[in-house]
């Protein structure tokens, strides 16, 4: 049930307190937070830096603007409504398709326009935003995720979290939504986390609720054959977020779109620690190694460095 601090230390596990003081506190300057805490700003900034993001259908900034929601959505089959300043995936509403005035979630639950408008109203009042401050609702096009992942996910879009430290991609995992997580890709809600080898983009190991898994709990598909295509492009996009934001310790959430390839979904200045569980390895040795590297290295070199030093072989194949 319990382990000892010395064993965690030997594994190089980074705890919450260390993450907060040693990495976030030291490398993430407070004044840069708005860039990532506001998804609209992130999006606009990403466009400047040539980083692809899901297409923006529109924004709702005022309560009376909600009335225009209906006209805004004309011509779009599926869409995603997000609070610009939401955290931890809160307040994200995914509508897969609209059928006869009913808005259908990936789970099959049907909503009326009133429900959707109420959700937007809640977003504007700041229900999901940090500190409850008034917020803006973003409406984005639905991502057509790569069909190769459909076996690995239940309802939601699988996304790839890459921790970027001082511009080096240090650790990555894929988050697969499950029935338990209600189609959301948050590990603490029950999504499956799959550790991804930085060198190849192949699965290393899977966890759900912090316990090891070898298959997806809903589709039953084994995780060993999971391999992310276009992996180098994805890593370069992630590494480029360092120049874009200036944040030293960054969680980048990426998705693979069928047509547009890797895309930046959102950034997180306080990425969680569950990625260590998914990889079965502590972040600390990698972070220590990066801290010893000189400044001013190009994103391509950083990606190459990470792929060379952080290569891992899968633990899944042996058991599969």
């Amino acid at each position, binding site marked *: 049930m319990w382990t000892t601090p010395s064993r965690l230390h030997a594994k190089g*596990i980074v705890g919450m*307190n*260390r993450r907060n003081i*040693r990495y976030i506190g030291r490398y993430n300057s407070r004044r840069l937070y708005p860039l990532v805490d506001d998804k609209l700003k992130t999006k606009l900034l990403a466009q400047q830096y040539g980083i692809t993001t899901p297409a923006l259908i529109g924004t709702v900034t005022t309560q009376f603007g909600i009335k225009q929601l209906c006209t805004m959505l004309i011509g779009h089959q599926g869409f995603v409504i997000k609070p610009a300043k939401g955290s931890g995936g809160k307040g994200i509403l995914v509508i897969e398709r609209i059928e006869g005035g009913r808005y259908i979630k990936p789970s099959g639950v049907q909503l009326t326009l*009133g429900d959707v408008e109420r959700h937007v109203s809640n977003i504007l009042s700041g229900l999901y935003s940090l500190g409850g401050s008034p917020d803006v609702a973003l409406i984005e096009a639905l991502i057509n995720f790569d069909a190769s992942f459909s076996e690995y996910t239940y309802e939601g879009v699988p996304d790839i979290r890459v921790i970027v430290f001082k511009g080096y991609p240090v650790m990555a995992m894929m988050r697969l939504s499950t029935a338990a997580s209600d189609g959301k890709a948050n590990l603490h809600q029950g999504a499956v986390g799959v550790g991804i080898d930085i060198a190849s983009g192949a699965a290393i190991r899977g966890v759900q609720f912090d316990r*090891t898994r070898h298959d997806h709990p809903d589709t039953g598909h084994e995780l060993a054959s999971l391999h992310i295509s276009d992996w180098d492009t994805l890593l370069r996009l992630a590494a480029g977020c360092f120049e874009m934001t200036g944040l030293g310790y960054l969680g980048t959430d990426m998705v693979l779109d069928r047509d547009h390839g890797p895309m930046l979904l959102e950034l997180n200045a306080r990425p969680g620690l569950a990625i260590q*569980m998914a990889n079965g390895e502590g972040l600390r040795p990698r972070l220590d190694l990066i801290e010893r590297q000189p400044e001013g290295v190009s994103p391509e070199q950083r990606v190459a460095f990470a792929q060379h030093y952080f290569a891992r072989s899968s633990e899944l194949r042996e058991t599969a």
Partner: protein
Amino acid sequence: MSRLPFYLIVGLLLVAGVAMSIHRHVQFEVPWTPGEQRQVWEIEAQVNFIADGGPAKVNLALPSTQQGYRILTEHTASPGYGLAFLEENGGRRAEWTTRQATGDQQLYYSVQALVAPSSRQPLIEPPPLRRDIVWESPYDTAARQVIERAWSRSADPFSFARELITDFTEARQGENARLLLTQFDRSPLLVRLLNQAGVPAREVSGLLLEHGRRRQSLTPWIQVFDDPEWMLFDPRTGERGRPDNLLLWESAGHAVLEVEGGSNSRVGFSMLSRNQPAAAAVRSELADDTLLNFSIHSLPLEDQALFQTILLIPIGALMVVILRVLVGIKTSGTFMPVLIALAFIQTTLITGLIGFLLVVAVGLVIRNYLSYLNLLLVARVTAVIITVIAIISVFSVLSYRFGLNAGLTITFFPMIILSWTIERMSILWEEEGPKQVLIQGGGSLLTAVLAYLAMNNPLIRHLTFNFLGIQLILMALILLLGNYTGYRLLELRRFKPVTED
């Protein structure tokens, strides 16, 4: 980046805190532990009235050394007023006078009373029996019958008084008693009846001493004489004897406060008990208000009572820091548990827990309905606030009806904080399910209970109130905790699977 300045600050805070505490211990002989000390009550009477604009004269009864209490020192604050202490037929009184006073007037009188179980009251002369009592019909018959009934069931003045007063208590009120109470106030009526029956008695006013109470008023008591002895009776219950925490403020049978040249006069009392070495208690007369005497104990009593609680908040906050940084417990709202713990101090733990759970549970049900109404956030939380107030009112009335006076203390809960708690838990429930609500709600309650236990500990209360240096030590501790990069206790469990391969 050097951490030297940080450790320097922590070191300085620690040294200063320890030094201040030791200084206070040595110089003022304030003990480290709350026990084995003489208890001193500091009582402050605040007289308020609205002056008419002309000359004003205020006459206030003062307490004297009596059974159980010895009066140590007294002070007054009354700028612009002349002051005289008078001895009038067995009672001490203060008389403030001024030639011209307009508007709101405030006069202060504060007294230190040492708890001295050995203290004896000087002999008191019984008041002369009043022979001039005239009753109107039909009260005369009622009075006679009440007296006869009590007389026949008693043997001496004290048992007569007991029987008489019990006949006027709620449970045993007869028709005669009810009739008399429609015309007279209880205490003067009882004195009148006792006098009529030839038993010397008078109405006196006493103050029930309770630590940290503010804006209290005096309660009437009946002093019955059987020369040379006397006995106190509670006019409400007929109970005999003086409660240990009763200080007789006015014991000559006169009015407590008389104001000439003013209206709307009233007197309120605040009190505080402090443990002091007997020697220091006696010496306290000598302590003067210099700039160096920079301590909250030089503040007016009412503010000191407030500080007693304020100085405990860092203890509660320290508990929160420990539980979050070292243990890793999740709470709903960072310092919400401290405020709940403060409420627990007023309500006592069990009542507080039951009250909190009731309010939050009922609030969640109603909040759940509110979410269907599709309201803006601020309006919805406001609706929850009103709901919480309504729940608290209903529970108070219900518990009072069922005779549970403890239920009334539910009003001490911080209502706005409770409303936000309900709002947050409700959202948590919708988004992450009841399990997270239980985890965070349970974490908050556990933190609140631990904070309460720490804040309610007599030793900790004594130390925080009497040694301001403790605050600096707490500050240093919290700074150190804020610098802790090690694992949290719950992380040892969370990350265990990683160490297993």
